[in-house]
C-alpha cells in the first residue's frame, strides 16, 4: 500500500509541475492564450471574400497575398501567445491559399475556405471544431456523426483510389498527390485530424 502511494506520488508530482508550468506559460491548449487583436487580418479576409464573390478569383488571390505576408511577418509575435490557436488560423489560411492558388480555382471551394478562415479568426480556439471546417471546405466528411475523426488510413486509401482513377489534369493530379503525401506524413504522426483534412482536400481535387 505504501509502495502504491509512493508510486502515485512519484507520477503525480511531475504531472502537477508540468501542468502548473503550462498554465503559467498560458500555452496549454485550454481556451485562453488569446492571439490579441486580429482585426487587420479580418479586414483582409472580408476584402478577399467580397472580391471572390464577384467571381474575380485572380484579384482575390492578389489580395490574400497581403494576408499571407502580414501573417508570416507576425508569426514571431503571435505564435508564442498561443501556439494552438495560431496553428488553427494558420491551417485555415493555408487551406484558403491553396484553394485560390489551385491551377483552376473553384469558386465553391474558395468561398468555403474563406468562410472557414473568417470563422477561425473570430474564434481561433475552435480546434475541436476544426474537422467541421474540413467538412465545409470540400464537402467531404472527415468525422463520423459523433465528431470522431475517421481513421486517417481509411481516408488515405480512398484518396489513393481516387488518384488512380481520376481523369483530372496533370496540375490537379500533382496537387492531389501532394495532399496525399502530406496526409500520409500526418497520419504517421498519429495526427488523424490534420491527415484527414489533407486527404479531403486531395479527394476534392481528384474528384473534380
Amino acid at each position: 500500500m505504501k509502495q502504491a502511494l509512493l508510486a502515485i506520488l512519484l507520477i503525480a508530482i511531475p504531472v502537477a509541475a508540468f501542468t502548473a508550468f503550462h498554465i503559467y506559460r498560458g500555452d496549454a491548449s485550454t481556451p485562453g492564450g488569446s492571439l490579441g487583436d486580429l482585426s487587420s487580418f479580418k479586414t483582409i479576409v472580408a476584402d478577399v471574400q467580397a472580391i471572390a464573390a464577384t467571381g474575380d478569383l485572380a484579384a482575390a488571390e492578389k489580395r490574400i497575398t497581403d494576408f499571407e505576408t502580414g501573417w508570416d511577418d507576425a508569426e514571431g509575435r503571435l505564435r508564442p501567445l498561443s501556439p494552438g490557436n495560431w496553428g488553427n488560423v494558420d491551417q485555415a489560411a493555408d487551406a484558403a491559399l491553396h484553394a485560390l492558388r489551385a491551377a483552376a480555382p473553384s469558386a465553391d471551394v474558395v468561398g468555403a475556405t474563406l468562410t472557414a478562415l473568417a470563422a477561425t479568426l473570430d474564434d481561433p480556439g475552435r480546434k475541436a471544431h476544426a474537422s467541421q471546417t474540413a467538412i465545409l471546405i470540400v464537402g467531404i466528411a472527415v468525422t463520423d456523426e459523433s465528431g470522431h475523426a475517421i481513421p486517417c488510413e481509411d481516408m488515405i486509401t480512398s484518396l489513393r483510389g481516387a488518384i488512380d482513377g481520376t481523369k483530372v489534369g496533370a496540375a490537379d493530379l500533382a496537387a492531389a498527390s501532394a495532399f496525399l503525401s502530406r496526409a500520409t506524413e500526418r497520419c504517421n504522426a498519429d495526427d488523424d485530424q490534420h491527415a484527414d483534412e489533407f486527404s479531403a482536400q486531395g479527394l476534392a481535387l481528384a474528384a473534380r
Partner: protein
Amino acid sequence: MSMPSASAAAVQFNRVPRVTPDFWLIKLMAVTMGETAADYLAVNMGLGLTATSILMSCVLVGALVLQFAQKRYVPWAYWLAVVLISVVGTLVTDNLVDNLGVPLMTTTILFTLALIATFALWYWLERTLSIHSIFTTRREAFYWLAILFTFALGTASGDLVAEQFGLGYLSTGVLFGMIIVSLAIGYFFLGLDAILGFWLAYIFTRPLGASFGDFLSQPSEYGGLGLGTVITSAIFLAVITAIVVYMSVTREGEELVAAN
C-alpha cells in the same frame, strides 16, 4: 538470487534479461522502431490498419515461438519479440480507437485494469512477480502478456495526453521524461519497489520513445528535426543492432536462477 555455485541440475537460466542502462536504451529505440514500422506498413504501403494488424500479429506469434524455444535469454530473439510486441500493442490501441471508436480515456482505463488483472493472476499463481526468476513457460507467458498490456497502455495514455489535451509531441516527451526521472529518483533514493518501478517505467518509456521518434522524424514545420521516417528508422535500427551485438558478445544480461 543468481547463485552459480548451486548444483548444475538446480540451476536454470532466467529467460529474460537483467535490467541495465542499455536495456532501457534499446527498449526506447525498439518502441520507436516498432511504431514507425507499423505506420509504414499501414500508411505508406497502404495495407490499412486491419491487414497490418493481422500480418504483424502472425509475425509476433512466430517471434514468440522462437523466444519461448530459447529457454534462456538470447538478445536477438528477446528484442525481436519486444519490437514486434511493441508494434502489436500499438495496433491494438489504434484498432480500438480508430476502427471501433472507443475513446482513448476508455482504452487507457481498460488496459490499466487488464494489466492489474495480469499481475494479480501472475502473483496468485506464482507468489512472485520477480523478473529475475522467469524460468518456466507459464511465468514467461505472464511476463510477455504484461509487456503487451504495458505497450497498449503506454500508447493509449501517450495518445490521450498528446491528442485530448492538445500537447505536441515535444511537450508530451518532456512530460513523460519527467515522470521517468521522478520514478528513477523514487527507486534510487526513496525505496520504490524494484518490480513496481520497473513496470511503471516500462509503461512510460512507450510514449517517451514515440515522442522522441516523432521529434526526430517530423518536419520542422511541426516542430521536429525533419530527418524523415526513413532516416530516423535507419538510425534507430543501427543503434539497436549495435546494442544487440554488444549484448550478445558481453552476455551481460544473462542471469542464473537457483530453482527449487
